């Protein structure tokens, strides 16, 4: 009788016990992440890898459907006028679409290759396969992981400039924290004045320049580049352009807003810097000038 009674009591409290356990588990996980700034690495990698094929497949399907719509469906109403012409138009459109897509892809790859050669850093090219599922954070998922040499904290760039850094890694896939995420911070300098500042994410395709001294003369349109002090990012990479400067209020710092040089909403291919010990274009030019100066003096 007691057993039956205790069983019913257990059933009565199952909901409460389980809910408390689950919430506790989630809280423990959260505190672990806050402390170490990382999750349960093995599970993270396992889950990223098991879900990434779905992302890849979905991206492929979306691109295919987009292609079909661009090449066929939008032309249907025009094609009714002439059945013979319709067939021909569709075929030609399809061909043009494919050629355009190939040409654009080729151009992008060429740009990437030229950029890669120009800055002579060890880099890996990767494709963006997914975006952040939430609205609070800014990240993308790419199709390269630890097996390809990708490690946490590595810089992610494109020919147009800085994109972000690797946040989480799986064996074959990784998550990139974009520079517009409020968790992102990159040590930078204003190219014209060499004023030092930290570029922090502000969300909604904007960043802000923090710790920029009030005495520094920066204006709208000034270009901001990486300082190279961060470790992950080599010196001289384009970060963005200053769009707003505010000196209101008191204090030793001024506020500035920055538009990233890369359109982060249209990312398709990215480059991951695996080694940042070599100097970049900006440094190379400087070094060249120095050597010319020395030679002239001699």
């Amino acid at each position, binding site marked *: 009788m007691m057993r039956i009674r205790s069983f019913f009591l257990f059933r009565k409290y199952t909901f409460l016990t389980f809910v408390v356990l689950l919430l506790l588990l*989630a*809280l423990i996980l959260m505190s672990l992440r806050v402390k170490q700034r990382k999750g349960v690495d093995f599970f993270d990698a396992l889950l990223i890898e098991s879900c990434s094929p779905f992302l890849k497949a979905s991206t492929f399907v979306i691109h295919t459907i987009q292609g079909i719509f661009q090449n066929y469906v939008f032309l249907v109403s025009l094609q009714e006028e002439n059945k013979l012409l319709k067939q021909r138009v569709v075929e030609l459109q399809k061909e043009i679409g494919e050629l355009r897509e190939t040409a654009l892809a080729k151009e992008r790859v060429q740009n990437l290759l030229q950029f890669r050669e120009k800055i002579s850093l060890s880099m890996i090219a990767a494709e963006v396969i997914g975006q952040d599922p939430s609205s609070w954070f800014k990240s993308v998922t790419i199709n390269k992981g630890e097996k390809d040499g990708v490690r946490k904290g590595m810089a992610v760039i494109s020919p147009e400039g800085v994109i972000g850094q690797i946040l989480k890694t799986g064996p074959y896939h990784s998550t990139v924290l974009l520079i517009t995420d*409020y968790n992102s911070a990159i040590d930078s300098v204003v190219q014209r004045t060499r004023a030092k500042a930290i570029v922090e994410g502000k969300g909604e395709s904007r960043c802000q320049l923090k710790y920029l001294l009030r005495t520094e003369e920066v204006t709208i349109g000034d270009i901001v580049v990486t300082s190279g002090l961060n470790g992950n990012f080599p010196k001289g990479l384009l970060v963005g352009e200053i769009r707003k400067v505010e000196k209101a209020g008191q204090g030793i710092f001024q506020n500035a807003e920055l538009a990233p040089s890369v359109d982060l909403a249209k990312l398709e291919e990215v480059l991951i810097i695996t080694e940042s010990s070599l100097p970049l274009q900006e440094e190379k030019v400087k070094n060249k000038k120095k050597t010319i100066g020395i030679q002239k003096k001699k």
Partner: protein
Amino acid sequence: MILPLFLGIFFITLQTTLFTPLSIQRVRPDIVLVLTLYLGFSCPVISGGIIAFFLGYLMDLFSGNTFGLYTFSRVFIFCVAYFFKDRFYLEGFLSRFLFAFSLALVEGVLILVLLNALNPKLPGHLFPLFFNILLPQSFFTGLVTPPLFSLFNRGLLPLSNRHGVR
């Protein structure tokens, strides 16, 4: 338990791929949240709770969130839905809409509070996002909830415990 799990993964995939180009100013309905709410109404506490936990974990994994906020918030939302399942009659469009809308808002506030607690240097400009993003997103989430609940009732219910959303 398997079907809602795969459906959740499918929804996360949709949210990270298809919904991104379709979103207006990053505002898009959170269909994973709708599924979590449905689980709260129709699934037993143990299996539903585990799926909600797993889906939250996946959300954290594919987002730029390093704290694991969604793992907590999705379990919390599941519990709230489970707690209210016999107290609400969610048959009509409006009741389903209002329920999802209010819980989406609750989750947003919870995330902001947790972010504020875990990150003392939280930039102030995240708070205006409550009006710019959270309100319209919760509205859209509320809008898609009634048709999705009807679909779930047809598709998931025969395979789960046949409670459904009444």
